[in-house]
């Protein structure tokens, strides 16, 4: 029996709940929740309501994770799971928006999520994030200055409380087929040339589309004025016209590149090289064009309503262990956030990013905040999302 099972049994015994009563109570509750749960979950204010993540209880049991495929680290983490009686149960997401859609749509019992750094304020506003206790994560001290100091408040709230733990990062550039695209593109604008008509693909994801458009137009996605927004929208629409349709996920981008149904991805990503190679095409490579890339860092966070906080904290801390960091970087084709992990990286992982001059590289990358949810001066996140379907649905028309 795992620690978690023991805790459940102890709790049941303490409350003298028989199995029959539990089932009866459970079925009534389930019926009630099925009936009004979604309605209640969606109804509510959007004011900030950040609470603190509970670290009580023992490490063990199920760790319900809502995150990207692979972030459960099936290679790196298996032994740790076994030693600690933990079962990591991943619900994979196709885009970051799946997280808020599921959690605000009534999903309960999620212990751990990841968020793209730009979603910090939105998730606080939606009441998704909780304040984390840094004492439960001693490995935080090993973060590189860029991630530890957090000048843009991606992982701390304006009060200075920690809300997320950056544990991996990556850069989006142009991913292309080296056999069919010659010479290699050097600028995002190259993809708008007639020779690329019908050969480009990109993800059906407003965040990535607008971020790249902002990189190309040298704008800040988090503070776009209406004219800047119009320019970005026109640019994405033009890029969409170069495609034969948008891909619903990064996995599908890799699939299209690997099969030859697309030759170049505007929303390229270093990890796609590996995904495509695994799908049988070793000729897919990612380059950072001259405009620079658009960078992301995914951070662990414990959402409100988590019921296994102790294990979530333990997992977060463990993923900042230098050995885990290096191993995970290989597993996910990503970057490390912990200084001491760099010497442990494999040659392949080291070749992905310029680790010798990493502070400069990270400063030059565009780590965006998403647009504000309410603003009179700038375009809001809602406006950005509402415009996206028009772009997608009219692509190529």
């Amino acid at each position, binding site marked *: 029996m795992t620690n978690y099972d023991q805790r459940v049994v102890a709790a049941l015994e303490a409350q003298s709940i028989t199995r029959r009563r539990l089932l009866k109570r459970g079925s009534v509750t389930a019926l009630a929740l099925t009936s009004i749960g979604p*309605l209640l979950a969606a109804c509510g204010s959007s004011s900030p309501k950040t609470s603190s993540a509970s670290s009580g209880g023992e490490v063990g049991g199920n760790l319900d994770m809502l995150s990207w495929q692979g972030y459960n680290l099936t290679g790196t983490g298996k032994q740790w799971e076994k030693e600690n009686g933990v079962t990591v149960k991943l619900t994979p997401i196709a885009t970051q928006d799946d997280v808020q859609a599921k959690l605000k749509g009534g999903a309960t019992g999620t212990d751990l999520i990841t968020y793209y750094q730009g979603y910090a304020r939105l998730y606080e506003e939606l009441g998704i994030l909780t304040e984390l206790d840094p004492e439960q994560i001693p490995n935080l001290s090993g973060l590189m200055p860029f991630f530890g100091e957090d000048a843009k408040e991606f992982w701390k709230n304006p009060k200075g409380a920690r809300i997320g733990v950056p544990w991996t990062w990556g850069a989006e550039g142009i991913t292309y087929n080296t056999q069919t695209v010659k010479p290699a593109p050097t600028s995002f604008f190259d993809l708008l040339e007639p020779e690329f008509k019908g050969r480009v693909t990109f993800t059906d994801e407003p965040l990535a589309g607008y971020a790249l458009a902002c990189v190309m137009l040298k704008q800040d996605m988090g503070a776009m004025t209406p004219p800047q927004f119009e320019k970005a929208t026109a640019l994405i629409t033009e890029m969409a016209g170069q495609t034969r349709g948008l891909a619903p996920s990064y996995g599908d981008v890799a*699939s299209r590149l690997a099969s030859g149904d697309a030759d170049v991805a505007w929303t390229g990503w270093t990890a796609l090289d590996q995904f495509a190679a695994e799908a049988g095409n070793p000729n897919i490579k990612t380059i950072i064009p001259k405009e620079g890339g658009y960078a992301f860092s995914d951070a662990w966070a414990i959402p409100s309503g988590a019921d296994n906080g102790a294990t979530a904290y333990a997992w977060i801390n463990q993923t900042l262990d230098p050995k885990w960091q290096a191993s995970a970087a290989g597993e996910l084709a990503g970057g490390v956030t912990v200084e001491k992990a760099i010497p442990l990286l494999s040659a392949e992982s080291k070749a992905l990013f310029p680790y010798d001059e990493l502070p400069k590289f990270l400063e030059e990358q565009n780590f965006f905040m998403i647009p504000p*949810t309410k603003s009179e001066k700038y375009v809001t996140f809602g406006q950005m999302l509402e415009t996206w379907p*028009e772009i997608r*649905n009219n692509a190529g028309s």
Partner: protein
Amino acid sequence: MLLASPAMLFVFVVFVIPFFTFAVYSVLTSELFSIGPPVTLDSYRHAIESDSVRTLAYNAGLIGAIVAFVTVAAALPIAYWLRFCAGRWRLPVLFLITSTVIASYLVRIYAWRSVLGTHGLANSALESLGLIDHPLNFLLFNRFAVGIALVHIFLPYVVLLLYASFGPMPSALLECAQDLGAGAFRRWTRVIIPLMAPPLLSSWMLVFVLSAGDYVTPQLLGGTTGVMIGVEVQNQFKSVGDYASGAAISFLMLGAFALTYALLRLTMHFAKVPQRIEWSS
């Protein structure tokens, strides 16, 4: 009544309550991933006025109608053959048809990607036969690709439905028609199709609703022209967080489906097509 109560409770929980919840959503006001008062019909108005929604609804209607027609047209002779001609091949062929249902929905969609893709089976075959010099790009990422995958997905279900409908039809009926001088074409147009009209139209309606509401196939195979309304509903709930608009679009589609059904019933009534056929033993 008592015996039926568990089933009625199940239907109430999984159908009536979500339906009611959706109806309420559609007339409330949405903010980012939240919904509440005031009550308004704005979401319906926005959906009706939106060019994008209209385009996707048109795509859904067109693709759904064609897919349903092709599926029923392909299933009818197969079901006929199984009922009247297959003999000892009936069970093996029925097994083969139903076994395709076992494969995952996504696997079947990706299988079509590998058939219709730039370097897929179809292009490779045409190239090796010397019929084309360059891969045909129009095979994938359009309405055609969505249509062919949906026909493949729904064909086994319609074959089974029509096979079951052919079941009680006495073979003597067809022999009589033949004895009276009706050729094969005349037997189909004057005997079989009129008698099978009710299940044919039901099958058409079933496939139409399921195809027009599909949102996975259009995303993976639809490209720029094959996106359908289901994708927009998903988008409103998942990305935009506008639950009211998502629900309103769903109800508008439901209304369109109900209208289509009503038109079919009216057509059957005026064409004097029997609503059901009772075979005398």
